[in-house]
């Protein structure tokens, strides 16, 4: 395993001087993921915070080949790139005779919602790329609206907590499970606080042949209304409350839970840490808190049972 020092000594393909907010998790995630392969990378980036903050003409933060066109098509765009790679390779016409790796990046709006059809299509084609979703649980780029990654009860600008409504009334989409059901070789959830896990998963994602999907929690200080210095702390709280389980799924079904909190904390700890949930901590909204706890427990128990099944299967083999 790499040490942080060794990782830091690798070339940073993401230049300093970007326009992302102070305390934003995305650069932390990205710098780890970009270091997880030694091959030159080609990146297709969906519209969102990362694209806005790193490719504002005439500046660019990208020291690698990078393309952005729209919010809903980054995977399809990458399919064209990989097809051209195969085509020029077999004709001996590649501009540089080197093996390349391919990385698609999108926020949760681009991944769960607008670009989902494009992503599902590319997964069905078994494209050999890594898909990185930085999941800040809302449309942060456009000012903090609800997406299907937004958890129930969160106050966003399109699901504001008001006198009558207590924020978003619908639960989030479990995208990692949806991606896993495409039977792709590798799906993983991680977060920036557990950097060794995130690095290892990114390395694994680049290694497997076929599509690999990384769903990484990306706390957004600006829209979650947390201090810029608390990004990593809040991300860890998500794992300790099991709101954001850290796990991986190989070949569609083989589940491993990579982090189990010594003491599973109640979800209220997580809710208390962010002002977007503060309205939930009243008596009349207790039912939502209970519902959130129920959903978290249900997913956590399911993951543990799937892991148990997987371990037994491995023993039987």
């Amino acid at each position, binding site marked *: 395993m790499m040490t942080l020092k060794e990782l830091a000594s690798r070339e940073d393909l993401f230049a300093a001087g970007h326009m992302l907010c102070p305390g934003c998790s995305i650069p932390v995630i990205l710098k780890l993921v970009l270091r997880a392969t030694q091959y030159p990378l080609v990146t297709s980036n969906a519209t969102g915070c990362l*694209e806005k903050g790193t490719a*504002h003409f005439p500046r*660019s933060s990208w020291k690698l080949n*990078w393309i*952005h*066109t729209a919010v809903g098509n980054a995977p399809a765009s990458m399919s064209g790139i990989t*097809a*051209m790679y195969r085509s020029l390779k*077999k004709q001996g016409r590649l501009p540089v005779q080197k093996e390349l790796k391919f990385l698609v990046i999108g926020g949760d709006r681009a991944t769960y919602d607008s670009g989902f059809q494009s992503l599902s*299509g590319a997964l069905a084609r078994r494209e050999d790329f890594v898909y990185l979703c930085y999941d800040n649980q809302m449309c942060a780029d456009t000012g903090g609206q609800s997406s299907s990654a937004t958890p129930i009860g969160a106050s966003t600008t399109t699901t504001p907590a008001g006198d009558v409504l207590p924020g978003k009334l619908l639960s989030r989409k479990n995208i990692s499970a949806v991606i896993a059901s495409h039977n792709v070789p590798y799906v993983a959830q991680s977060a920036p606080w557990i950097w060794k896990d995130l690095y290892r998963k990114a390395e694994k994602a680049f290694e497997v042949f076929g599509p690999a999907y990384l769903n990484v929690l990306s706390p957004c200080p600006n829209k979650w209304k947390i201090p810029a210095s608390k990004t990593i702390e809040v991300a860890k709280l998500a794992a300790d409350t099991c709101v954001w389980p850290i796990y991986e799924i190989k070949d569609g079904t083989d589940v491993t839970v990579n982090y189990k909190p010594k003491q599973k904390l109640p979800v209220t700890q997580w809710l208390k840490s962010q002002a977007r949930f503060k309205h939930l901590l009243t008596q009349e909204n207790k039912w939502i808190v209970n519902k959130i706890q129920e959903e978290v427990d249900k997913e956590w128990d399911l993951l543990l049972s799937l892991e148990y099944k997987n371990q037994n299967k491995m023993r039987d083999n």
Partner: protein
Amino acid sequence: MTMRVMKVMDGNSATAEAVRQVNPDVVVVQPITPATPIVEKISSFVANGQMDTEIVDVESGQSAISGCIGASAAGGRVFTASASQGLVSMHEILYITASLRLPIVAGVANRALSAPENLYADHSDAMAERNCGWLQFFCENPQEAYDNLIQAYKVAEHMEVRTPVMVSMDGFLTSHSQENLYIEETGEVNEFVGKFNPVFSLLDSEHPVTVGSNAASDYYFEHKVNQLQGMLEARKVIKEVGREFGDRFGRYYGYFEAYKMEDADRAVVLMGSAAGTAKETVDQLRTQGEKVGLLKLRVFRPFPYQELKETLSHLNSIAILDRSFNPGTPGGPLCNEIKAALYDARQKPLVFPYIYGLGGRDIGVNDIAGIFKEIKEKSEKDEIIFEIKYIGLRD
């Protein structure tokens, strides 16, 4: 001596045959009536080893054109085909393709737009994309579909143009109608089109590029006006390529075909397969001593306003026949743009707007003869019509 062969083919087969000969590095496929047989034939060429292009089989129009963007930006030659709902679902991305100056070529079998859902020919799909920054060629028959597709690559990839090209033929009327046509020798076609020279490649790890930045009010304007340069250069290049094509293969192409226009005092202006019917009508009326002609527009973008003004301004009257729905304006897109082209002419004809053939409604010799008769009577009375007339519409 060119070893061309005469074959019987429909427009889709002729398009697929041209694509087989040009052999793009990547073809993105997606079924959409009536362009589906183009991608079916290309898929079958690949399955049988008759071309070695990489096929990307996508799930939607938007993914098809997005795949083309990625492939083209990766530094190779690309093709896709579409029509109607498939084409307009590409709308958002078509603009980006042109702005990124990617020389993609798309074959389009023109079809009406929903609702009501309709599978048949009209130009509303291509006209919905007329301002997305692509060059647009329109074809009368399978021969032109074949010839225009080959020329499209040479124009799009010209270093001063570097702009995508859409080659349109009428759905079913051309895409599915078989006619005799010349297929040129593959070696000759390749020599004519030439090798693809990328300006940059996303696969060139030694020269990384950032493609598709965002630009605010400080730079956006410059980007758009720079983009226009490709379209402006295309005016010259389309003519050069059309002449070169004629010198090599014997069939010459310009912005438009002026049929029996030298001494005409009245003319019909249109695009696409109805030109055949219009030529027959002109021939018949000529035997009766009528001085009528036809102007068949081939290049809609860039719109050849200067040349159209020179060719049309001395006429007494013209009927402009649009095959698309352009609600809330004084005519179809062709009519409105020709009127604009004529505005600063010293002498100009009376212009009569017609709309015909929506959703595949037939137009016949009698219809066009009726139009010639009508504009003659109206212009003799010096009667100006601002109202659009619809041909063959039920009462």
